[in-house]
Structure formats: structure tokens, C-alpha cells
């Protein structure tokens, strides 16, 4: 086929392009993802029984997870369209991680030496490392689908951004179940759980985001 013929075919009778409403689409996608994740927590894990008295720490944890998602959002959006530099959006993620590290150290220094280890590890295996990625999966799948309707060209980076963003959403839902309220626990393991989501996203990105 001659390229001139192709150009002719593409151009003939071209109509005004639709303006895709990307902000609305991403917003709806994230909202649906969050609702699904919360429903999953309610059905399978169960909301923590003391949610009535623990409203404050649950709120704080959910806000921290929401902040993580909010930091990933500009990066993910920037990657939806080709040829746009990432600039400060990558830096913002770094700043967030740095703040989390500082918060962890500050909180641990405020603890008694005897209780420090428990405040950090929560006194057992940090299950959020497994459960947050599972809760993030529906959001990640929906976001992947939304994203493919646009034109991401850096698939590994886009995958990581989708993973991190979904991880933040998953962690928001997880905070309703999570029984551990120690600051250092949250700033360490929630961040790591979200990072795992980002790594999984980066690994899968090139395969699932192709268009």
C-alpha cells in the first residue's frame, strides 16, 4: 500500500475531533475503584470492630493513603498523552517518600526503646504488603482500560504510575480494616505496599498498556 493512499483515506471526509473528557473519566474510574475496594474490605476482611472509637486513626490512615494517591495522580495524568515532560511530577513522588521516611524516624524516636520495634513492625507480619496490592487490583484494571483509550507511550513508567495510584486507593480501603494505628507502621508499610503496586505496574505495563 502506498503511503499517499493511506493519507488520502485517513483525510477524506475527516470530521472535527471529539474532545475527550479525560478528567471526568479518570475521576469516575478512581471513584469506582475505591468503591469496589471498600466493598471488598467489607465483604472479605470485615471493617475493624472498634471503628466507632477508632474513627480518628482510621481517618488519618485513609488521608495518608489518599495523599499518596494524590501525589501519583499528576504523574499518571501527564503520561496519558504523548510528548509531555514529567518534570516536577516525578519529584513530587520523591518528596512524598522523603516525608514518609522522616515521619517514620521522628515517630520511632519518640517511642520508648522497648516498644520501638513493635511500633515499627506492628508486632507481626505486615499484611498490608499483600492485601493492599490485592485491593488495588480492581482500580488498576479499570485505570489500565481508561488509559488505553488515550495514548501512553512510556508504558513502563505509565504502569508504575497506575500501580502507585491504585495502591493509594487500595490503601485507603485497607485502612478501614487495618488494626494497627502506629504512625511509624503506616508511614513504612503503607508506603512499601504502594511501592510494590508500582513495581508490579511497571513490570506489567509494557504488556497490558499496548495500543
Amino acid at each position, binding site marked *: *500500500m502506498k503511503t499517499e493512499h*493511506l493519507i488520502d483515506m485517513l483525510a*477524506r471526509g475527516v470530521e472535527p*475531533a471529539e474532545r475527550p473528557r479525560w478528567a471526568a473519566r479518570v475521576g469516575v474510574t478512581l471513584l469506582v475503584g475505591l468503591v469496589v475496594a471498600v466493598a471488598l474490605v467489607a465483604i472479605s476482611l470485615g471493617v475493624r470492630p472498634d471503628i466507632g472509637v477508632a474513627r480518628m486513626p482510621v481517618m488519618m490512615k485513609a488521608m495518608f493513603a489518599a495523599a499518596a494517591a494524590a501525589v501519583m495522580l499528576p504523574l499518571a495524568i501527564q503520561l496519558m498523552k504523548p510528548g509531555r515532560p514529567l518534570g516536577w511530577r516525578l519529584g513530587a513522588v520523591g518528596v512524598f517518600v522523603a516525608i514518609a521516611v522522616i515521619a517514620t524516624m521522628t515517630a520511632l524516636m519518640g517511642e520508648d526503646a522497648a516498644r520501638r520495634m513493635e511500633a515499627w513492625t506492628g508486632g507481626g507480619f505486615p499484611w498490608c504488603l499483600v492485601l493492599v496490592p490485592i485491593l488495588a487490583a480492581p482500580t488498576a484494571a479499570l485505570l489500565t482500560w481508561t488509559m488505553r483509550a488515550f495514548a501512553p507511550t512510556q508504558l513502563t513508567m505509565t504502569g508504575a504510575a497506575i500501580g502507585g495510584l491504585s495502591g493509594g486507593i487500595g490503601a485507603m480501603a485497607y485502612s478501614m480494616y487495618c488494626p494497627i494505628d502506629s504512625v511509624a507502621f503506616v508511614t513504612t508499610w503503607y508506603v512499601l505496599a504502594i511501592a510494590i503496586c508500582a513495581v508490579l505496574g511497571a513490570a506489567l505495563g509494557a504488556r497490558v498498556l499496548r495500543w
Partner: protein
Amino acid sequence: MADEAHLRALLLKGLAGEEAAHRAFLTEAAALLRGFFRNRLRGRAEDAEDLVQETLVALHTRRDSYDPNYPLTAWVFAIARYRLIDFLRRAKHRNHASLDGGMDIGEIDPDYAASDAKRDLNTLLARLPDKQQAAIRLVKLEEKSVKEAAEETGFSESDIKISIHRGMKTLMRLIGEASPT
């Protein structure tokens, strides 16, 4: 070499539905892309032309992904680079699949038209439903009006338009996917 502001103006007019501007944009973009791909696939002019076509299709079908706040050429080359990486990945898979793994395409015939790619439009068209095929052939290839095509086939005008729309969508997908070997 076409300049940024000129190409950008053409694309924006094309986005507003101006056919001539859109055609001019695609033609100038094709020249830019040809240089880009030939530099990177030396001695494989046909593969380069395949990629020019794939990228043109991507520029066309995803034209709403251009953000006017950023340079147009950055957008064009981001998509070109993406298509190139995708092509190289596919080529690697093909080599793994074949036993000899040979990619030798022999001497390039100097008379072979420079802008001809290996994929054949008729083969791709043949994979569409008859109605869509007929609509695209008449309107897009034989340059008939929608009205004439409707009279010739006996379908209604809106039927023809919908068939073209659906058929072109599938065709674009096939051009993007088909490994032209």
C-alpha cells in the same frame, strides 16, 4: 523540514474538521517520520515505510491526544518512538518463532517505489464485513460521495456513513496490529 508552528497550525485546523489541513498535516508528518525511521532502520526501507504508515494511523486515530500546551513535534516523535519500540519487540518475537531466525530480506530492488509498504490494503480490506468493505471502497478509494455510494449499494446514506466509520476503525486497528511479513 517542516517547522513546528506550521505543522501545529495544520493539526489544529484538522482537529476542527478541515480536511485539506489534515491531509497537509499527514503528508508533512509522513516526510518527517520517513526520515526518522530510515535513520533508525538503515537498509530496511520497507520496514521503515510500514512504520511510517502505522505511525500515521496512530497520529490520526489518537489525534485528540495532542496537548496544545506542549510542542507538536514532541508529540509526533513520542508516538513514532513508541511505534518503533513496538515494532522491534514484535520483530524479536518473530525471530524467536522461526527456526532459522533469518531476517535477510535480500537486495532491495532500487525500482521499488519508495513509499510502498509491504502490507496490502486489499488483504486488510478483505477482512472486513462486505458492507463495510463496499462503503470504504466506494467512498474512500473510488472518491465517490456518500450519496452516490448509497445509490449504488442500495443502503441508506446514514448506513454508509456508519459502515465507513466502523470499517475504518477496524482497519486502523488491523494496520496497527498486523505484522506485515
